């Protein structure tokens, strides 16, 4: 039985009809067209689908759409505002931390969330924040560098 839910996504309000078994990831991607969050495994192993529910990073493949009725969601598409990209996005470009780009949205969301909680994260904080995020291209070197580099942008 489909249900009507309300979601605020990246500042816009939506009222949509969803199956109770649809994940938030499916709702965002297939119903609302926010394809920035990626599905790498569908069971919370890879981190590519990370979004914020009320500012908290969550793997959206592990949450049902109906569970978050009324929630405020931010996806990677909502991270750049007024055509300005966030500090971690800038730092990813600076450090050459993008390769295939499939894990990138999840990595970016996780690091940006880290900076909202910790102003001066150390290497261990970064690794802790990214331990549930898999990348097969980079060997993580440039991602860690970007996470550190982002500090200069968040300070301002």
């Amino acid at each position: 039985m489909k249900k009507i839910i309300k979601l605020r996504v990246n500042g816009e309000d939506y009222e949509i009809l969803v199956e109770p078994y649809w994940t938030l990831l499916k709702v965002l991607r297939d119903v609302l067209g926010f394809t920035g969050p990626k599905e790498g495994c569908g069971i919370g192993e890879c981190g590519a689908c990370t979004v914020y529910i009320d500012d908290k990073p969550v793997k959206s493949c592990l949450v049902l759409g109906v569970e978050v009725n009324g929630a405020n969601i931010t996806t990677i598409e909502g991270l750049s505002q007024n055509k300005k990209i966030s500090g971690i996005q800038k730092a990813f470009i600076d450090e050459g931390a993008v390769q295939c780009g499939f894990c990138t949205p999840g990595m970016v969301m996780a690091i940006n969330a880290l900076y909202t909680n910790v102003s001066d994260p150390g290497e261990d904080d970064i690794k802790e924040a990214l331990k549930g995020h898999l990348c097969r291209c980079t060997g993580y070197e440039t991602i860690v560098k970007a996470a550190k580099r982002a500090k200069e942008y968040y300070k301002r």
Partner: protein
Amino acid sequence: MEYKFIGKEFKRVDALSKLTGRARFLADIILPHMYYGIFLRASIAHGEILDIETEDAKNVEGVKAIVLGRDFPHNYGHLIKDRPIFAFDKVRYYGEAIGGVIAKTEEAARVAADKVKVSYKPLPIITHPKESLNNKEVIIREVSPTPDMVYRPVKGTNIFHYDVVKRGDVEKGFEEADIIVESEFNIAPINHVQIEPHGAIALWDEDGSLTVWSSTQAPFTVRYFLSDIFELPLNKVRVIAYYVGGGFGGKSDVGIEPMVALLAKSVPGHPVKVILSREEVFHGSFLRGNFWGRVKTGVKKDGKIVSEKVEFAMGGGGSGEFGGTVVDGAFKSAVGPYEIENVHAVGYGVYTNLPPTGAFRGYGHPETHWMIERQRDIIARKLGIDPVVLRKKNILKPGSINIIGQKIEEHNGNLEKCLDLVVEELDWPNNIGHIDKKNKKAYGKGFALLQKSPVMPTNAASSAILKLNDDGTVNLTVGTQEIGQGIDTALTQIAAEALGISPEKIKLVPYRDTDLYPYEWQTVASRGVWSVGNAIIMAADEVKHKMRKVAKEIFSVDEEDIVVEDGLVFPQGEKEKAITYKDLAIGYTLPEGSGIGGPIVGAGYFIPEGLVYPDPETGQGNSAAEWTFGAQGVEIEVDLITGKVKILKAVTAIDAGTIINPENARGQVVGAMAMALSIAQREAIVISKEGKIRNDSLTDYKISTIRDVPSEYKVFFVETEEETGPFGARSLAEHGMVAMAPALANALYNALGVEFFKLPITFEDIALAIDEKKIV
């Protein structure tokens, strides 16, 4: 040489779209009136299909069609034609697709798929290549050689292909040797684990034309196979590809596209979409096959290798079509980057009851180097000489002849310098290994050498089109794919250099479409920069030639007196009269108003000229282009209680010719090192007695996380300019994979005094070895 844009910092052209979620991948595509497909997969690893019961499934609401292998019993391929679209006579591995369900929703398709009942007559299974090589009772696939077959199957066996190298006389060489060293090696099967699962969408139009959207490294090869299978002219098959979320070879062979196209054929007018689940990526795509090999080496006391015999078998899975060429790649590097007078190498591709083997970053080279670079250290130890000295006595240098009979030239690169850089970084031979009993730790250093050339057909071609826009900017289209390696960025720089305008003025049009973009064989073998780069230079020459032709009219001088330089066009010695590309882009308007010339487009192509098929009996012949040489090393710390290995430093020195984009090149080498160490330390497909893959999830099949990778990476580029490469560049994207595993095992010996002969070398293996040797 000095370049304006080559070797300079230039940020990835695809970075911003990938960072903002705008970049498009296959799964992001939703088309009107689209249906969803789910594959039916075999529940046993080997057996005849007796009956398939679909009535209950058909009655599920929303189901549109059920397609079975027996509806279209067809084996496709180009080299041996042994790959069914869906299995129809028997299944040869657990999870092999035997058909599919199409429904209005994914859920309906899944519910229906669960209701399909299949009965089998089970057959005995074989999963190890050595066992398959010697087994004549359990024949997984009967193949008889035919004249049009490129592979060489052996009738009555599981061998679907083999290669031979013969130089000199190995037996005579062994007689002359002072010592003989024999070793046997094994490697477990592994999966690519691209974070993006495989997927495709297919749509048949009422006019019989087929469009396929796919996450593929090889849109033109997909088009070729679809046209061949469905008997369509190539211009009735269109393949569209967006960014590939990781390929590593696993999206270059054609697997999912014919399956989805066959499903969609039953519902013309409706696109059918299939995205593999993560489990299906493990048992329903491609693997790097398991590997067994034996090496016998004859050496003089001074370290000169006089004779080497290599025998290996690669598990090919249930179909050999895409695996046999991996053997073709491996055999050319069967003894690594060494000059040896007497060599006999035989490599076999054998059927096994596992998913088919396909391309995997390194293409047979990590496998042969695993054996050879372990063997070199073992030999050095037996002779009591430094492994650096042993290698230097035998490595390929300018003037050396490699095992396929090619003479190494100066421009092929400087392997010795790579070796020197790595051992210097490791501070070799100081402190190469010791045990710290007090702190329950051991430390070791190890290194290994590598070589690789692109494994490709002798005629693997590329092309490129440069189109000038009215404002002097340029659109570049190519058929090679952006799979994360940064090809779009490197090619933009090459076009900029060739045209003499800044890379910001050039747009390499993202995504690929076989109807609109020029031909490319495949995006594999690290050959994109080299092959497509050359095509771009030719296209730029055509652009410049066309501009000269118009400019000679404008300036009333001979064509050869027109200079095209830095975006300006002018008569020799009269730069003040210069006009710009913008003035000529769509035709020039003379002062009186009449137009000359026209819109300028330049097309270029490249084919590796002069390559020939290897001699079938000896493997000799100019069958490999642009070798890249390198050296790799590691420094490790071993926890003597848990066996856990920490990589303190991972080093690569590679002579990849001119480096087009240093940041992205380093990214490729570092990424490859990390991937190779992940594979060497923790990756193995675990197979049950029944032939089922037991670890088909990212929880059970572990790849390195951010906490498991080396603490420090060092990369050195030696830049000996490649004569055949664009601005002196050659291949580098796979090479960081090739010698890391033997470097790690060599370091483990130096740390613990234990010889490892199989991959992976897990922490458990190490802890058991420590226990057995009573090290603690």
